[in-house]
């Protein structure tokens, strides 16, 4: 910044002078970073993560491990007994956590009962409805005439999908769910309870999963089409080589080699959660929190939410006199040059759900 300011300066400044007070070449544009930082610290961040998977795959434990505190539904529940609910419920627990002055409002959305019944037909419906409801709420706030300065963001930024460690291939339920949801939210698939698999089994399993995802056209985060430049692509390619991450969660500490570490102790050894040689939890945490959190939020806001918004507004603008419930006509979407056919049953909200699940 200072260099470019110098170029426009008619008289080059004498060398050696660095103080800003007497430095004519310093404009101060770089101070904006400091201002943004201060503002962000004051405002705080919001992050909404949804965890989806069969019961018993370690979802709540992983959430606790990720944020190193008891943020999961289990810890919030006073009753420790686990009963599989008859229908899928969606439970959202919010926490305010703080680290080095940075405040974060974290919401963990849990989905107990997913994939646990005997007949799991349409078990993704409540989840899709929930995600769309969050988009709808945000949209309503946005198109308000008198709107708040900061719209509370309850949109689901990221959905972590837990794959059971069978070691063979994806189950039909997994494929169905990810296919439908990758279109509305960022999905991060992980292999749950990865301490079941030996290293060779793990690699084989990952290979199989990647091929199946590719064969079914499921675009998981980080999506290839949203890479902005070569640098991003490089980093994201490295990540894409590693998904799905094989994770192990634990919220208990054990002494290993004199250090206190999070892990699981069995009779034949102790599994260290943060050891890269044991499991890939560290990579997941880096992806979600340390490097790509802002990117995830951006994609949710600018792409998924925009798609929803365009669809929704086109539906209600389908024609004068047409109630939002009536079937709208063919509408080209603005994002990524894809054409979507909006022809569905005449139900305002249900039409969105139907369109989302409509095969293109």
């Amino acid at each position, binding site marked *: 910044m200072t260099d470019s300011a110098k170029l426009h300066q008619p008289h080059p400044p004498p060398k050696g002078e660095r103080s800003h007070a007497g430095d004519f070449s310093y404009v101060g544009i770089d101070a904006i970073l400091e201002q943004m930082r201060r503002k962000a610290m004051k405002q705080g961040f919001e992050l909404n993560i949804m965890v989806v998977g069969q019961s*018993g795959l370690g979802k709540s434990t992983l959430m606790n491990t990720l944020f190193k505190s008891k943020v999961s539904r289990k810890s919030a529940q006073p009753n420790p007994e686990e009963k599989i609910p008859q229908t899928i419920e969606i439970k959202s627990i919010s926490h305010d956590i703080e680290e080095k002055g940075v405040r974060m409002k974290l919401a963990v959305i849990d989905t107990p009962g997913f994939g646990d*019944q*005997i*007949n799991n037909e349409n078990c993704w419906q409540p989840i899709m409805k929930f995600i769309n409801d969050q988009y709808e709420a945000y949209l309503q706030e946005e198109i308000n005439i008198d709107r708040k300065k900061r719209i509370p963001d309850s949109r689901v930024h990221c959905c972590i999908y837990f794959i059971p460690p069978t070691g063979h291939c994806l189950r039909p339920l997994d494929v169905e769910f990810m296919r439908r949801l990758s279109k509305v939210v960022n999905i991060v698939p992980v292999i749950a309870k990865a301490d079941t698999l030996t*290293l060779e089994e793990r690699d084989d399993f990952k290979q199989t999963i990647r091929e199946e995802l590719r064969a079914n056209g499921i675009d998981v985060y980080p999506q290839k089409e949203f890479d902005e430049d070569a640098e991003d692509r490089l980093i994201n390619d490295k990540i894409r080589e590693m998904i799905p991450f094989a994770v192990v969660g634990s919220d208990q500490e054990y002494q290993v080699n004199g250090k206190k570490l999070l892990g699981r102790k*069995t*009779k*034949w*050894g102790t599994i*260290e959660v943060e050891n890269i040689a044991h499991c890939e939890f560290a990579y997941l945490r880096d992806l979600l929190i340390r490097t790509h959190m802002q990117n995830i939020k951006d994609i949710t806001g600018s792409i998924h939410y925009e798609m929803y918004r365009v669809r929704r507004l086109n539906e209600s603008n389908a024609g004068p006199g047409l109630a939002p419930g009536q079937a709208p006509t063919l509408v080209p979407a603005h994002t990524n040059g894809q054409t979507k056919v909006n022809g569905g049953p005449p139900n305002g909200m249900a039409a969105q759900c139907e369109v989302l699940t409509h095969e293109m």
Partner: protein
Amino acid sequence: MLAQQKNLEGYVGFASLPNQVYRKSVKRGFEFTLMVVGESGLGKSTLINSLFLTDLYSSEYPGPSHRVKKTVQVEQSKVLVKEGGVQLLLTIVDTPGFGDAVDNSNCWQPVIDHIDSKFEDYLNSESRVNRRQMPDSRIHSCLYFIAPSGHGLKPLDIEFMKRLHEKVNVIPLIAKADTLTPEECQQFKKQIMREIQEHKIKIYEFPESDEEEENRLVKKIKDKLPLAVVGSNTIIEVNGKRARGRQYPWGVAEVENGDHCDFTILRDMLIRTHMQDLKDVTNNVHYENYRSRKLAAVTYNGVDNNRAKGQNSTKSPLAQMEEERREHVSKMKKMEMEMEQVFEMKVKEKVQKLKDSEAELQRRHEQMKRNLEAQHKELEEKRRLFEDERANWETQQRLEQQKLDASRTLEKNKKKGKIF
């Protein structure tokens, strides 16, 4: 009259009866059928391979786990293993596709059908006249694999076990037990046993015996139910000795180590101590249940519904069968009579038809004859006319000829100079 126990005064020799039985059984060989049920990816094939130290599912014949299944199927594979002169014909029944689809309602139906069909086969072969060979393909035990979620039983598990506990010996196992730490494992087991009791599922019970020693062993096993197993057939070096296990970056989980998992207990129980008991329970309890249910259904269907329902239970099966036979015979007679009647009627009809057609034919014959006669007459007529014409023409010809002759003679005379 109770048999009194008498003391023998000398050595008779029937103490060698067990030896005779033993020799005969060894010659005959043994059969054992084992069914494995569970979602795909729970290590069923690996466990079977580990249990019997054979590669039932090798790389040339890939097991069900590597093939994608659309519906639940039931597959049988037989293997003949020999050890110490004893032959065992081992049949493994696998159920690929169980619990894998999105909608798993009634995925237990093929399994139940298979078990029932095996019972039926045995029932039929038992009721045959020639019973020399009775192959026993009934399912002696069913190993049900529970996924190691750590929470409790899934609705599918409960449904399946509830439907099968009265048909087969159900032995629940916790699969892939190296996922669980010892504490989690304990809690999981307790939770499962609690749920099993809550839903009144009757899993296979180890028999109590008279000996104190055995009872203690049995009690130890009972405390560890359901057994948490780990399967592996790869041999790894651990502390200088070779053992089967799974190699992880943080250690090796040994399959045959009692501290690590309950595999040895399962193997001992299934093969070394309780195999005969499993077969006995299958024969005496499950098979008998099936048999009485099946026969009662047959006899109930045979009796007229108007009769009092109380009567059926008091009649013995033989009397039932007699009655059934009589009814059947009378029904047959009735049917026969009816058929005869119908037959007669048909015959009459046919005769009538034949007569009619005969008359018809006769008539036509007459008509044709008349036609022919008419034609004949016509033709005669024509011929006569023709003959007349001919005669006319002939006479005319003659006349003409005469005239010609006359003129010719005149000419001739003229020529001859008779010119006057």
